[in-house]
């Protein structure tokens, strides 16, 4: 953690007591905050909560081992979920970048087609979810399709935005030095697009996850959605929380892959921050 190392390595800080240093380090404060919330949940879940609705985190961890990871059917449902997310995201990236490059290619195609893309992006896609299930059936195809239709839009939008926001000065400079159209695309437009592309890839992952999970929960006759329903209807919160937490960990894992790819593939010094406060969704 950068914040941690900077807090401990500054010479001025070494003379102050360790407690006040820790109290000023955002990283350790964050850990303390999360630990405090978990402790509070543990206390509340153990002594005050109705066990039909809430169980303490320790019981959830126990349920993870006794009734989630030990059930081959649930494990295979989780694996299926991972496969669906991977395929849906792969398709979103390939088609999103391709369509984005076509739409963003010229000023005219941008002016004509970009508003259509933005309009489609603005429609709440959940209203099509029953239709998607009707067309693709109850199996993984519907979840892949729904994840894909969610994930592709932010990728298209950010590819187009990245190609649009090339500085006129850079274009003129390249042209005046005799660059051909292909040279300009290869050496000016594409490198300029990279940060925006990765913003799109990150949002695309978030929305792919959303699409797949929505469809999984809607189809409650099989897969992860079935088990969440069984646990919820039997008032058995510990395995329900454990299953949800496993899915959350899978989501975090997928997000981290994109973030690490962004950090290793982005040229230049600018590292993607863990957080992007201003590039909030949509």
């Amino acid at each position, binding site marked *: 953690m950068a914040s941690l190392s900077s807090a401990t390595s500054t010479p001025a800080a070494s003379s102050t007591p360790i407690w006040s240093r820790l109290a000023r380090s955002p990283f350790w404060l964050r850990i303390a905050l999360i630990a405090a919330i978990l402790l509070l949940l543990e206390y509340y879940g153990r002594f005050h909560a109705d066990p039909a609705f809430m169980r303490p985190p320790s019981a959830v961890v126990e349920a993870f081992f006794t009734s989630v990871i030990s059930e081959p059917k649930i494990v295979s449902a989780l694996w299926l979920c991972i496969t669906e997310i991977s395929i849906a995201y792969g398709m979103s990236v390939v088609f999103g970048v391709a369509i984005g490059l076509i739409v963003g290619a010229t000023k005219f195609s941008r002016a*004509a087609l970009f508003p259509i893309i933005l309009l489609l992006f603005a429609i*709440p896609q959940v*209203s099509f*979810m*029953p*239709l998607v299930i009707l067309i693709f059936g109850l199996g993984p195809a519907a979840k892949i399709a729904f994840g894909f239709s969610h994930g592709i839009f932010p990728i298209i939008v950010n590819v187009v935005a990245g190609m649009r926001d090339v500085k006129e000065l850079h274009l003129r400079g390249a042209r005046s030095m005799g660059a051909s159209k292909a040279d300009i695309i290869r050496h000016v437009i594409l490198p300029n697009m990279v940060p925006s592309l990765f913003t799109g890839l990150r949002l695309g992952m978030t929305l792919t996850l959303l699409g797949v999970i929505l469809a999984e929960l*809607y189809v409650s006759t099989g897969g992860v959605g079935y088990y969440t329903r069984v646990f919820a209807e039997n008032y058995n919160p510990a395995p*329900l929380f454990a299953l949800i937490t496993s899915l959350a960990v899978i989501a*975090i894992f997928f997000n981290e892959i994109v973030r690490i790819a962004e950090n290793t593939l982005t040229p230049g010094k600018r590292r993607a921050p863990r957080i992007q406060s*201003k590039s909030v969704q949509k």
Partner: protein
Amino acid sequence: MDRSSLSSRSVQWAFLALAAGAWYLATATGSVSRLFLPPPREVFTALVALVQTNAFWSAVLVTASTVAKAYVLALIIGILAGYLVSRSKLAVATIEPVISGLFTIPITLFFPMFILFFGVGTGSKVAYGATYAFFPIALNTIAAFANMEQRYLLAAQSMGGNRWQIFRYVLMPGALPVLFTGLRIGFFICLASVLGGETISSVAGVGRNIALTAELMEPGRMFAWISFVVCMSVVLNLLAFSFENRIRAR
């Protein structure tokens, strides 16, 4: 309107005409099952019949009031929490990554918990929609107030502005555009998540009716509901954008 924007407009109209034509042809020739895509005429008559029923308006009312309750909740909690966090640099550095990190996980995952806690009625949808909308509103409130140029605050202080005056004339005008973006994103996430929650598990509302007509295999009525949602969201988006532009222009 100059020539280039005229021709891009015509491409957009051509796209619309192409989509409508494809819809008509696909259903007229019978190459697409009526179950997946009913003819435009059938959808239109279903929509006309639908808006004349009381059931339609009561479903719309349920969804609208759910969205309104969820949004107001998210608005109050999100802005308050965001503003309080933004007042300290340490709090921003500590708490903001937690909120934005959580926001990259689909909150939909926790939907079964909302059902468990609040039942299948509107309460679970209010809580779910409010939770989802809280994130963009809180994040944008933090970004709006925390990234204020210190020079402006110092200048206002040195000219003897009191706390209220600084808030009213420096903080608010500077923060408003970013804040409003958060409010817009929050609203549409709230709308989508309430619809999604109704579709997955509920007893009433627009989302419930879309799921129900799909289960009953009534494509005409299902598409009527879907087109209603699509039209409403397009209108609301256009309204929000023009409102946002007006705020920015000031």
